[in-house]
C-alpha cells in the first residue's frame, strides 16, 4: 500500500475486511454465512496475495471459530473474525467464554434476522440478544464508519481486555457501495501498535486459564469484568478522538444530529440513523424542532452521555429494528432504564420499526415523529 490515503468504492463488508487487514491480525478463524461472506472472501484473498500475514482457520462451525479465537488471543496473538445471525447464535456459549477469559478479540457481525423461519434481512435481534455476554458492542451506519470502527475496536479491546463486536446492518451497510477512505498502513501502525499483552499462555511463563474457582474468586472476576466495561465509554471516546486527529473522521460514542433546541429526538442504532437524518431534515424544514441521537456504543450503554444528550428534551422516539418477545424493542427498554430517575425526563415512546428488514422510509419516520406527541405513553414498544 502507498503511504497516502486512498479513496475506493467499497461495500460495508469490504470496508470491514480492509479495516481488519490494516489491523494486522495474526490469527483469523472464520466461517462463511450470508451476508458476511464477502468479508471472509476478501480477507482470504488478501492473505493469498501476500497482503495479510495471518494464520487462517476455516473450521466446521462458528462455535469452533470462536473456540479457536479465544486461546489464540490468550497466547498473545491479535485475533479477528466475522459472522452474522445464526453464526452469532451458535457462538453464544463462547461469547461468554471470551469475555470471561478477557480476550480482546474483535468480531464484525452483520445484523441479519434470526431463524425460524429462515430469512436474510437486516434485523439487529441477533447481536442485541448477546447484550449480556460481556462483549463491547458498537453499531455502524456506513462503510467508512465500519472500516474506522474495526481499528478503533482493537484499540478499545486491547486497552480494557474485553472482546469487541462491531455490528453493521445486512445489505443496507454490508452490501451497499460507498466511497471509502482507506488510511495508509503507517498511519494505522502508529494508531494501533502490535499487540503485547501482560499475560499470555507460554511454557516459559507457566500461566494457565480456566481453572475451577471458588465462589469468591468468581464474584471478584465478574466484578473486575464490570469495572473494565465501565471504563469503555471513556476509552472508546479517546480512541475516537485520536482517530479523528489522525484522519479527520470522528464518530463519537453517541452522535447528536440537529439536536439544538429539539423538542423531539429520535434515537436509533445503525443504518436506521441514515434514514432518520433525512426525516429530521424534513421535520426541521416543516418547522418541527426534531433531532437525532445515534447510539454508536450500545454496550456498555453510555447512560451518562444519553442522559446529558436528552436533558431538556420533551419527547423521545426510539426506533428498534429488533424484537424481544415479551419485552418489545431492546433499545427502547435499555434507554428507559438509562433515563429512569432523571429529573424532568423526556416522554419515551418506542416503535418496532423495520423488524424483519421491512423498509422504513424517511417519510415514515417523519410521520411517526409527528404522531408521537398524540399517542399515549405505554411501557411497551408498539409495532409500526
Amino acid at each position, binding site marked *: 500500500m502507498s503511504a497516502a490515503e486512498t479513496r475506493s468504492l467499497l461495500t460495508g463488508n469490504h470496508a470491514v475486511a480492509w479495516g481488519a487487514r490494516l489491523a494486522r491480525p495474526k490469527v483469523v478463524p472464520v466461517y462463511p454465512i450470508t451476508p458476511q461472506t464477502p468479508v471472509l472472501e476478501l480477507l482470504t484473498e488478501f492473505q493469498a496475495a501476500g497482503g495479510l500475514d495471518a494464520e487462517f482457520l476455516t473450521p466446521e462451525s462458528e462455535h*469452533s471459530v470462536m473456540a479457536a479465537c*479465544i*486461546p*489464540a488471543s490468550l*497466547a498473545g496473538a491479535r485475533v479477528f473474525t466475522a459472522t452474522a445471525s445464526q453464526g452469532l447464535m451458535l457462538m453464544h456459549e463462547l461469547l461468554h*467464554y471470551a469475555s470471561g477469559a478477557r480476550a480482546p478479540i474483535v468480531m464484525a457481525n452483520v445484523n441479519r434476522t434470526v431463524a425460524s423461519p429462515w430469512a436474510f434481512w437486516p434485523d439487529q435481534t441477533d447481536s442485541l440478544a448477546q447484550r449480556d455476554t460481556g462483549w463491547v458492542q458498537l453499531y455502524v451506519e456506513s462503510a467508512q464508519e465500519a472500516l474506522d470502527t474495526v481499528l478503533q475496536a482493537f484499540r478499545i479491546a486491547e486497552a480494557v481486555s474485553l472482546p469487541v463486536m462491531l455490528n453493521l446492518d445486512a445489505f443496507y451497510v454490508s452490501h451497499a457501495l460507498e466511497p471509502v477512505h482507506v488510511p495508509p498502513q503507517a498511519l494505522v501502525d502508529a494508531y494501533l501498535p502490535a499487540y503485547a499483552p501482560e499475560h499470555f499462555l507460554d511454557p516459559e511463563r507457566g500461566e*494457565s486459564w480456566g481453572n475451577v474457582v471458588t465462589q469468591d*474468586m468468581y464474584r471478584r472476576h465478574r466484578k473486575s469484568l464490570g469495572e473494565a466495561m465501565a471504563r469503555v465509554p471513556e476509552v472508546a471516546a479517546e480512541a475516537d478522538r485520536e482517530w479523528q486527529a489522525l484522519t479527520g473522521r470522528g464518530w463519537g460514542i453517541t452522535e447528536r444530529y440537529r439536536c439544538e433546541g429539539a423538542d423531539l429526538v429520535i434515537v436509533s442504532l445503525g443504518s436506521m440513523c441514515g434514514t432518520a437524518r433525512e426525516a429530521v431534515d424534513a421535520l426541521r424544514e416543516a418547522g418541527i424542532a426534531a433531532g437525532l441521537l445515534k447510539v454508536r456504543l450500545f454496550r456498555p450503554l453510555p447512560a451518562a452521555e444519553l442522559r446529558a444528550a436528552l436533558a431538556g428534551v420533551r419527547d423521545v422516539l426510539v426506533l428498534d429494528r429488533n424484537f424481544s418477545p415479551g419485552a418489545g424493542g431492546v433499545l427502547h427498554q435499555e434507554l428507559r432504564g438509562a433515563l429512569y430517575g432523571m429529573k424532568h425526563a423526556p416522554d419515551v415512546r418506542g416503535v418496532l420499526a423495520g423488524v424483519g428488514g421491512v423498509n422504513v422510509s424517511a417519510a415514515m419516520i417523519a410521520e411517526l415523529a409527528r404522531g408521537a406527541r398524540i399517542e399515549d405513553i405505554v411501557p411497551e414498544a408498539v409495532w409500526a
Partner: protein
Amino acid sequence: MGLMTDLLCSGHAACPGCVEALSLRHVLGALGPDTVAVIPPSCLAIMAGPQPLSGLRIPVYQPALATSAASASGLRRALDALGKKDTQVVVFAGDGGTYDIGFQALSSAAERNENILYVCFDNEGYMNTGAQKSSSTPHFARTGSTPAGKPTRKKNLTAIMAAHEIPYAATASSGFLPDLLRKVEKARAIRGMRLITLLVPCLDGWGVPEDQGIALARLAVQTGVFPLYEVEDGYRFTLNEPHKSRPVRDYLEGQRRYRELDEGVVATLQREVDEGWARLLARL
C-alpha cells in the same frame, strides 16, 4: 523408561488408585515441559485445578466441553504466528468430550490436519459426573443412564479418526506403559494431527477394587476387547503386542458394570470381539 521429569504434581484431587492420573503423569513425562495442554471439563480438569493451584507444571487452557480440538487449533496457530513452532499443543480429553460433544470439532481439526496431539483418556463413560453412558460405553455395560445395560456397541473412535487419513492414530492401554510411552514419543515427533485413544479403567465407574485398575487395563488387551494398534496416514496398520489370547469372560468378571450377565450375552460379546479382531487382522 529412564528418569522422568514429573510434570504432574502430587496432591491433586483424583480418586485413590486412579489409573487416569497415573497415565497422565507418564504421558506428560514423555511430552516434556515445552508443552501447552488443552483440557476440557473432565476428571483431568479436576486434576489440573483448582485455582490458584495447578496440578500440572505446564500451562493449561481449559476450554468449553465441545471445543477441545478447535481450541487447540487456535492455540497452535497463534503459537506458530508468534514463532513458537516447537512448543507442543496437546489435548487431554475424556471420551465424553471426544466421542460425543467434541467430535464435530475433532473431525474438522483432523480434516485440516492441525499440528496437535490429541490424547483421549477413554474410561468409557461420563465418569466425572458420576458414570453415565457415552458413545464410548461398551455394549451391555451398566451406567447411571443405562441401568439395564447399554443396548448398543462402543463407537470406534480410532478407526474413524484413521479414516480422516491423519498422520498418526493409535490405541494404547494404561496396562502397557512402555507401549504407551513409545506411542507418545512417536506421536510427539510427527507433525500434523495425531490421536491416541488411551484406555483408562475407571475404578468407580466400572465398579472395580482400587488395586485392580492396571490388571483390568491389561485384560482388556489380552482378551482382544481393546486391541493395541497404530494407523499411519489412514492405511498403514500395525498390530502391537500382546495379541488376543484369553476369553472375554476373564475381562468381564470382577467389573460391576457387567454384573448379572447371562451366558447368551457373554457369548454375544465374545462373538463381537472375535469379529472385530478378524476385521483388524484383515487390515494389516
